[in-house]
């Protein structure tokens, strides 16, 4: 008569199913959290990739700036360009205000991390420029 009582087996199975049910609940919650984290990670990845492409792409920034500075409209602007460490310095002791407008509009409409700027009017027609852009 030492055979295991079927009620015990049924009870064990019911408890086992209950435990599995709880585990499933926890696993669902965990999956939901993992999906939320993945969603968040996707958004952050996209944001970082996009912004890094804008502000942390040295070659792209230097290339785009060179293209602007070599533009025919700025030939008379006597612009100087210097790259030191992770910064690029653009300066002109004297340039026409029309050239300055062209250059500033190009730079402000482009994706550059401008960290310093100094525009000083020399007279009615000319101004000096000093600009620092982070690479």
């Amino acid at each position, binding site marked *: *008569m030492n055979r295991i009582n079927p009620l015990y087996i049924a009870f064990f199975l019911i408890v086992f199913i209950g435990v599995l049910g709880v585990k499933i609940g926890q696993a669902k919650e965990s999956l939901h959290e993992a999906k939320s*984290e*993945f969603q968040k990670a996707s958004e952050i990845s996209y*944001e970082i990739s996009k912004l890094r492409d804008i502000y942390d792409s040295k070659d792209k920034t230097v290339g785009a700036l060179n293209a602007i500075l070599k533009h025919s409209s700025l030939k008379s602007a006597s612009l100087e360009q210097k790259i030191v460490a992770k910064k690029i310095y653009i300066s002109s002791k004297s340039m026409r205000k029309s050239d300055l407008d062209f250059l500033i509009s190009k730079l402000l409409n482009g994706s550059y991390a*401008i960290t310093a*700027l100094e*525009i000083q009017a020399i007279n009615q027609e000319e101004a000096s420029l000093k600009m620092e852009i982070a690479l």
Partner: protein
Amino acid sequence: MFTKYSKKIETLFLEPSLEFKSVEQNVNIILSPSFYWVKKISLPLKRERDVKKLLPSIFEEILPNGNYSYTVYKKEDYFLAFAYEDRVILEFLAARGVSMPHIANICFAQIFFSEADLPLRISKERTLVMQDGIVLMVPSSWQMSAKEFCLDDRVFPKQTIVLEKFNHIVDKKNIYQIGSLLVFVALLFGTELFMLQQNRDDVLSAKENLFATHNLKSTMMQNESMAKRYSALHEEQMKFRGIIAAIINLQLGQNEKIDSISYQNRSIRVLLNGVKESDFKHIAEALRAKNIGYKVNFKDTMAILEVQL
């Protein structure tokens, strides 16, 4: 009711007409013929299990209504078939205070006693006899030469039965069905749990791959910090451009002009020439319209405008 029979594990003969003797240790039980029906049958079958399937129909005509269990033992050229009601035996034991865990083995008197043991007087009124190979209980007056019940150190037979506690409530088939259903549900739940964990692992793995694909840091915290830094830079640049655009587009008077614009350490400084304090109103309104906070100082005809990002 019980008579002591063995010294090792106490063996008791279970018979309703005998006096009750309480037990507190493990016991073997011999069922008297009062608790079962037995038939000696010859069938062209070899295996006990094949015969067992036929027992309900074999006993059908002689058994009163009830839920019976069946057992069969193969002898030399015949089978000994038994039918018994688990519930009746269990209730009888329970009424005498014998708990199931204390019962080691149960067998039929038919199996326990050989022809050499019988006739055997179990009480003044009852005697066990063997007739045509079947153990029967008869009034003692029929067998005056019967042996007295004695305590032999006899080995309990291996041909024992197991009482089905719920046989009368739920059919064994139903128990298996319910058990199968529970096992199926458990398997279903187990599978779902496995799949959920697998999905979660896939998502976590995809997240790590995402970081690797975009050449990002390995932890979320580092990436959040990086994103925050880039966002702050982007916000600052957008704000800077907005303020510079607003200043350049200021509607200045005839004698008013911008002398210089400088930007450093998140601070924009504009020198406006020809702008007195009394003339600054239209500039202030234009800046306010763009939601630009500022500080202004006046020096002679010079207005020094400062805007913090």
